[in-house]
């Protein structure tokens, strides 16, 4: 409907003296289609990101009373949230024995919560009262894996603006993951068919990749800093540094590609090989990312 209306309007203003304007409506229609497709793609990506990381509902409560954690052992499934409610007359903390989290002082009448993503047992204590000891047992997702895990976490299709790092990182990562391989692919096509337009596209894509990838890494770091302790330590360490290295490599690639583009030349085999290595590193990086969210 909207497309037709706009087309008609622009068409009305068409005058024979300009051939460029004659194709205007077509171009506009095309642009609207592209915009619609991009918007659809974006919302699909956002919904997907939402599903992967739904806001977990609190369904487990540890009561802190009379200088005790009750129950002393709380069993939850990976991805679930535990709330600590301080019903004591003293302030307490919920501090992981391995130092992976610390609530800070929870005043009487206040509460604190934390979502546990990684299976295992975490012992914790109260810093001011080290005799207060308890544990959270986090059960892994079952054999059916991620899908049933998502189902049990109550993922919904509801649209909401992505604001958290765990929502933003998977969105940005799509661009990073798509742009560089496509740029490489486009350069290869350009060499095969000897078409300069393929090389132009490749240059622009590698530039976009270099521009957007720092945001991907920033969202990743933000995620890591807010709840990195809940993620598998080895995986996250490799992922974070490989990702940070990728940012630098993308910039190097963009500069390299730019120098070729400026000379209107085709990229060298050295460049293509280097780009291929970065693409392979990116595939490995994506595998690690997937493992951290969905398990092995």
């Amino acid at each position: 409907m909207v497309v037709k209306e706009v087309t008609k309007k622009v068409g009305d203003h068409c005058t024979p003296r300009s051939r460029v304007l004659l194709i205007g409506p077509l171009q506009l229609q095309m642009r609207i289609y592209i915009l619609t497709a991009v918007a659809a793609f974006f919302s699909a990506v956002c919904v997907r990101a939402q599903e992967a990381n739904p806001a977990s509902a609190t369904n487990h409560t540890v009561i802190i009373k009379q200088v005790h954690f009750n129950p002393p052992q709380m069993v939850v499934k990976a991805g679930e949230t535990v709330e600590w409610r301080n019903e004591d007359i003293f302030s307490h903390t919920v501090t992981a024995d391995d130092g992976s989290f610390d609530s800070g002082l929870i005043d009487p009448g206040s509460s604190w919560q934390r979502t546990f993503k990684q299976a295992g047992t975490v012992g914790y204590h109260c810093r001011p009262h080290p005799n207060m000891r308890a544990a959270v047992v986090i059960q892994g997702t079952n054999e059916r894996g991620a899908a049933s895990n998502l189902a049990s976490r109550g993922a919904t299709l509801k649209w909401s603006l992505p604001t958290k790092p765990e929502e933003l990182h998977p969105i940005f990562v799509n661009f990073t993951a798509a742009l560089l391989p496509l740029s490489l692919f486009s350069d290869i096509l350009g060499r095969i068919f000897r078409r300069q337009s393929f090389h132009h596209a490749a240059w622009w894509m590698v530039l976009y990749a270099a521009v957007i990838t720092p945001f991907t890494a920033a969202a990743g770091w933000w995620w890591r800093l807010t709840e990195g302790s809940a993620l598998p330590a080895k995986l996250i360490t490799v992922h974070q540094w490989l990702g940070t290295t990728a940012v630098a490599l993308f910039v190097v690639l963009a500069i390299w590609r730019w120098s070729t583009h400026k000379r209107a030349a085709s990229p060298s085999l050295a460049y293509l090989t280097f780009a291929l290595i970065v693409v392979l590193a990116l595939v490995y990086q994506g595998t690690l990312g997937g493992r951290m969210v969905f398990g092995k």
Partner: protein
Amino acid sequence: MKLSKSYLSVLTSAVLLGAGAVGAHAQAPTDPQIAEIVQTANQIDINQAKLALKKTSNPQVKEFANQMISDHTSLEKSVNDLAKKLGVTPEDSATSLQLKQQATEESKKLANLHGAAFDKEYAAHEAAFHQAVLDAAKNTLIPNAKNGELKSALEGAAPLLQGHLEHAQQLEQSLSGK
């Protein structure tokens, strides 16, 4: 473990507090006396924590002292509320007077110490003091409390004292490690 002077002095008070049980049943503290002993112990700990806050520059010691003030103020209030509810008026006894006198001496000693020496003495004394009060609560105060609510309140305070004891021991250890 090296027995510091303060540890010995507190040990004396522990023996004294324990004497209620060991000595004669006739000397067992009454509920009003138990209430006063608990409140005295609270007051002593709060005052020494306030002194520590004035004198120390060690963040760990500050954190500990702030926690003592916060916890013992809450405990004091809950004991006060309970005493009022039960119509118990705290009453001095030989034990509470002895505690007060020892606290005055300890405060004087602490007042003359500075820096790391102060921190160490404060932590050592806090560990010993909480051990003494905990022992007294378990051996003398709880068994002799007549009123059920007072008894269960004392039982409820035991894990808190145990927590303070362990925290003070940790503090002591980390200070001697430096």
